[in-house]
Structure formats: structure tokens, C-alpha cells
């Protein structure tokens, strides 16, 4: 079929077939394979973060069990449903492009884009909440406000907690010369000299059932992991929305149809990958048991 069209189209005049391809099928398969190779690199990029997550969680399960209480399961679940729904509309949009249903394609791409905005909106609410309560990465993590949050929360893990959770004890500082005075922007991680056990939390502090009794050290590790993973995912959502926006403009101009829908297909693949990553992030960050 395609070779016939090729001949009929007077090589070089078929606007849908690039010169360096023999057939439409070859062009289509090449474009798709290229997209999959790109997605493979994305999987590897996130793979590094999943590896960091796995190593920290296997070394410090108590931090993850304690800190995940500060994530809102409802909002996380809502975002999961929003992304899954947007994946449906995106897959449907690819079908509409294949069948040349322009009006349907515009509607479905718009819904997908709107879902992207809803996802980011919910994420913004979650980030703002954590920002307010000092539930942040590394040295920006503030345990004091964190306690205040615990007092408000219904299932407050910090409610019955010791008054000094993850803050470095001020008396540690003089022990090791060269470490900045308390209050300065030094790492919350105890230095090796003071804490010969390295970063390990003594086993008597590990408490897997009653969350409140002990606040583990170095809770900021969880929030570092959380912000890097959801932040990078969020950037991918934004990138996906830009691509879908470009597809929407193309659809409005009537560029896509049965002969030319690969851009919509590839944009869909990217969007589904973003969904795939969230499918793993949601249980790993929000649903720790």
C-alpha cells in the first residue's frame, strides 16, 4: 500500500513522508522506536532516584514510617486518579488522531491538559503545606514547626513525642572543632566523630507500631527524597503539558489525521510514562506501612 502511495506521490512531494524513509510504515516505526529509546533514558533517570529511595529506606525504615504520616493520602490518591483519568483521555486522543476525528481530538487533548493543571494544583497545595510547617529537605527541615503541625493533625505522630525530635543537640557542637556553631547552616547529620555509629539509629529507637512514641533522627532525609522525586516528576508533568499544548495547537490547525498522527502518539507515550512513574511514587511515598 505504502509503496504505491509513494509512487503516486512523486517522491519528494508527499508532505507526510520524509525523504530518507522508504515507506510510511518505516517512518512511523522509526519515530516510535526513537521515542521509546528516549523513554528508556527517562526510566534510567528515575531509576537512580528509586535506588536512592531503596537504600535509604532499607537503612532507615523508621524515618520513612514516621515521616510519611505528614503526607496527605487523600491528596495523593486524588492526584493518582487525576493522572489515570488523564491517561485515559490521552490514549483516547491518540485514537481520535488516528481516525481523523479532529473535534474529538481537540476536546480530549484539552481534558488531558486540564488534568495536568489539576495535578499541579493539588501538588502546590501539598508543597505549600510542607513549606509552612518546615517539612523540607536537608538543613531546611525544621523540627519545631513540625511539632506544631503535629498538634493540629488528627493522627499526630509528634503528639506524644519527645520535645526534641531531629534537631541536633547544641552540646554536640563543641565536641568537634571545625563544626559551625549551633544555629548556623550546618548539616543536621551528626558528624562521624560525635556519632561513631555513623548514620545508623540505635535499634532501641526503632519503633514500627506506635508512631508517636519515638521521633527518629534525620527525618529530613525522607523529605529530601520526597521533594527530589516528586519535584522531578512534577517537572515531567510540566514538560508533558507543554508538549500536549503544542499538540492541541496542531489539532486546532487540523494537522493530524490517519496519515500523520505520530506526534500525538509520541506525546501520549511521554504522558503515560509520567503516569507510570507516579503509579510507583504514590505507594512508595504516601502508603508506607
Amino acid at each position, binding site marked *: 500500500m505504502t509503496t504505491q502511495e509513494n509512487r503516486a506521490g512523486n517522491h519528494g512531494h508527499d508532505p507526510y513522508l520524509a525523504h530518507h524513509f522508504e515507506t510510511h510504515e518505516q517512518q*512511523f516505526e522509526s519515530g516510535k522506536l526513537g521515542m521509546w529509546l528516549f523513554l528508556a533514558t527517562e526510566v534510567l533517570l528515575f531509576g537512580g532516584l528509586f*535506588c536512592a529511595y531503596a537504600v535509604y529506606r532499607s537503612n532507615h525504615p523508621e524515618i520513612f514510617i514516621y515521616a510519611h504520616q505528614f503526607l496527605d493520602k487523600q491528596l495523593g490518591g486524588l492526584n493518582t486518579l487525576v493522572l489515570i483519568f488523564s491517561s485515559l483521555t490521552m490514549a483516547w486522543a491518540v485514537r481520535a488522531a488516528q481516525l481523523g476525528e479532529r473535534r474529538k481530538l481537540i476536546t480530549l487533548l484539552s481534558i488531558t491538559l486540564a488534568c495536568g493543571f489539576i495535578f499541579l494544583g493539588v501538588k502546590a497545595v501539598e508543597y505549600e503545606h510542607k513549606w509552612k510547617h518546615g517539612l523540607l529537605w536537608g538543613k531546611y527541615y525544621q523540627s519545631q514547626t513540625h511539632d506544631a503541625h503535629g498538634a493540629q493533625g488528627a493522627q499526630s505522630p509528634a503528639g506524644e513525642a519527645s520535645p526534641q525530635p531531629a534537631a541536633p543537640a547544641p552540646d554536640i557542637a563543641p565536641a568537634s572543632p571545625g563544626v559551625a556553631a549551633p544555629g548556623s547552616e550546618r548539616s543536621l547529620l551528626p558528624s562521624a566523630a560525635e556519632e561513631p555509629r555513623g548514620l545508623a539509629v540505635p535499634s532501641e529507637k526503632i519503633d514500627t507500631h506506635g508512631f508517636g512514641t519515638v521521633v527518629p533522627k534525620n527525618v529530613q532525609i525522607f523529605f529530601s527524597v520526597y521533594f527530589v522525586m516528586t519535584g522531578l516528576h512534577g517537572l515531567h508533568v510540566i514538560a508533558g503539558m507543554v508538549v500536549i499544548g503544542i499538540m492541541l495547537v496542531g489539532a486546532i490547525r487540523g494537522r493530524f489525521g490517519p496519515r500523520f498522527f505520530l506526534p500525538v502518539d509520541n506525546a501520549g507515550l511521554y504522558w503515560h510514562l509520567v503516569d507510570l512513574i507516579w503509579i510507583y511514587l504514590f505507594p512508595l511515598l504516601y502508603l508506607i506501612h
Partner: protein
Amino acid sequence: MSKHQDRESHPAGLPAGVHVMPVKALVAVWAALVVLTVVTVGATWFDLGSGNLWLAMAIATVKASLVALYFMHLRYDRPINGIVLITALLFVALFVGIALTDTEAYNPEIIPGYAPGMPE
């Protein structure tokens, strides 16, 4: 998804070998994903020990497979695309697996007196 349906929804100009997903299949996959999301949230109500993590990962993998096979058309694509994805996943598994094996080979606490400068 029979051959008959394929021909029906295969308009002129569509390159050969391109599969058009029927709306019914898309909605069915979506419904399955929603149900599995509810199941994975519901599973946190039960204490299965370390089983909770494995269950959550198993459900996530089923969901991911549904998305990859149907929304991303892998089931109907040329196998090379799926091979690319699975290769990437294998390398991630290798990376995470070896890193975990390594980190678990260490004692969480240094044996007292074992290293210089350690309190007895």
C-alpha cells in the same frame, strides 16, 4: 479486539500495522486502574508486615503493565519497543538490586572498640 474490529476502524491512509484501540478497551483499562488504586490504598488498612510493601509493588506493577500494554500500545507494537523498555527496567533492577545487596552487607552499628577512636 478481533481482526474484524481492526478492519472496521482502520481508515484509509493509516499505515499498515497501526493498531487503533477500541474505546471499550480503553475505558475497561481505566476502570481496572481505578479499582487497583482503591485496592492499593485499602491494603494499607491491613498489617501484613513486610508483605505490605510487596503487595503495593505488585499492584503498582500490574497497573504499570496495563498502562504499558494498552495505553502505550505495547501489546500491538513491534516487539522492539517493548524490548527497549524491558531492557531499561532490567538495568534499573540490577542497579537497585546490587545497591541494596551492598548496603545490607553492613552492620547497622559498628562493633564497639573495633575502629580507632571508638568508645569501648
